[in-house]
């Protein structure tokens, strides 16, 4: 009897393999995100990052979701991604968003036992609200944000200030959520088309 409870306990706890998986997928995701973010230097592309990152990142994440069986994995990966965004110069907001969105996304996925497709898609959408954290400093204090970025040139600053009017904030937020959902669907179709055949799911 004791052995059975012990086994159940170790099933709920995160094991070494789960943690290594988190590290691997976080590394892949961060590399993909960095290469996409390079596009942000064209002003029109800046808000598009809220569309592209969830969409393309969805492929990686759906593969990661197939490995998730325990509570905590999604939280940890979101926090790590938030910390990575912090280190790469997006300010501390993504980190705070990462903690909140990560745990909510994890709870949503857990409510479907990490098997339900609908819950997975929804959870990926919530997780991607983290990306909105990168844009938050632009809305809170746009003049302060650009006071230290004068080297980018007045034209770039003007173009960005024109794009990031306060009313666009909820749109970007919604965008990151909706395209998170689309990204999840795209990722799932990729899973079906490629990864299941290759036997890595």
């Amino acid at each position, binding site marked *: 009897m004791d052995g059975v409870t012990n086994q159940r306990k170790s099933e709920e706890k995160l094991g070494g393999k789960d943690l*290594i998986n988190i590290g*691997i997928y976080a590394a*892949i995701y961060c590399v993909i995100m960095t290469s996409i973010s390079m596009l942000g230097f064209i002003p029109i592309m800046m808000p598009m990052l809220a569309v592209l990152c969830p969409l393309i990142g969805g492929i990686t994440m759906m593969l990661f979701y197939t490995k998730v069986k325990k509570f905590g994995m999604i939280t940890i990966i979101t926090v*790590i991604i938030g910390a990575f965004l912090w*280190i790469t110069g997006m300010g501390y907001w993504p980190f705070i968003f990462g903690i909140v969105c990560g745990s909510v996304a994890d709870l949503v996925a857990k409510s479907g036992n990490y098997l339900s497709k609908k819950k997975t898609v929804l959870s990926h959408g919530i997780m991607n609200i983290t990306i909105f954290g990168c844009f938050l400093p632009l809305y809170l204090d746009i003049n302060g944000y650009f006071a*230290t970025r004068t*080297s980018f040139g007045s034209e770039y600053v003007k173009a960005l200030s024109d794009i990031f009017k306060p009313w666009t904030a909820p749109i970007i937020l919604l965008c990151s959520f909706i395209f998170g959902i689309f990204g999840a669907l795209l990722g799932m179709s990729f899973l079906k088309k490629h990864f299941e055949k290759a036997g890595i799911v």
Partner: protein
Amino acid sequence: MDDSNNPAKNNRGLYLDPRTKILFLITITTFALGGAGGRRVEMLAPVLCMVPFLLLITAKRFKTALVGIILLFASSILLEFANKINMSGLLYYLVLGSFGILSRFLPCIMMGRYLMESTTVSEFNAAMKKLHISDKVIIPLSVMFRFFPTVMDEAESIGWAMKMRGISLGGKHASKIIEYRMVPFMTCCVNIGEELSAAALTRGLGGEVKRTNICKIGFRLQDYFSVALCLIPWILLIMDVVK
């Protein structure tokens, strides 16, 4: 996941504690790249930007440091020049894109590179343990630490291969870029990751018992000096917020 046998890492000159390096990385990204703290810290930013190059020199990475310094100066001079003559249009964005990104991100990239090159995974683990961070975060982080160079390498190789087939930005089949790059990239990385995790598990990662570490890390004189330098902008930031 241990690479202490790597000769490049054994011969590395001045020793800094990994915790100091992490503090440096966070400070530089927050103040030099993120531009936090406003005007008063701005004076300090050039000093912070030079730190990674200094560290690279102390770590006997002369070539990397020299290339970095030349790139940084060239890009900032060019940017100044572009702003002065009021360049506009497409050319301006090209100049901005390539040099703005360089001058801004280079110190951070160099710092990250210094951190990666001069720290072994074991040292990194020992430092994180001393910071009392949970194992649940340390293991993924150390895997990332070890895995980053591999992922970049794979991405580059697949980029080359696909370019040969005309699947790149501006190539013949640019529309297929996502599928044709992502799928082999992910497949490669996941397979390498599986092997990595098998290797780490055989060495007892994620076991029930507490893991020990033989790396000797600790603060020395140069660490105290560096920490003091890092604390200045943070104190200025706090003063700014409080006031």
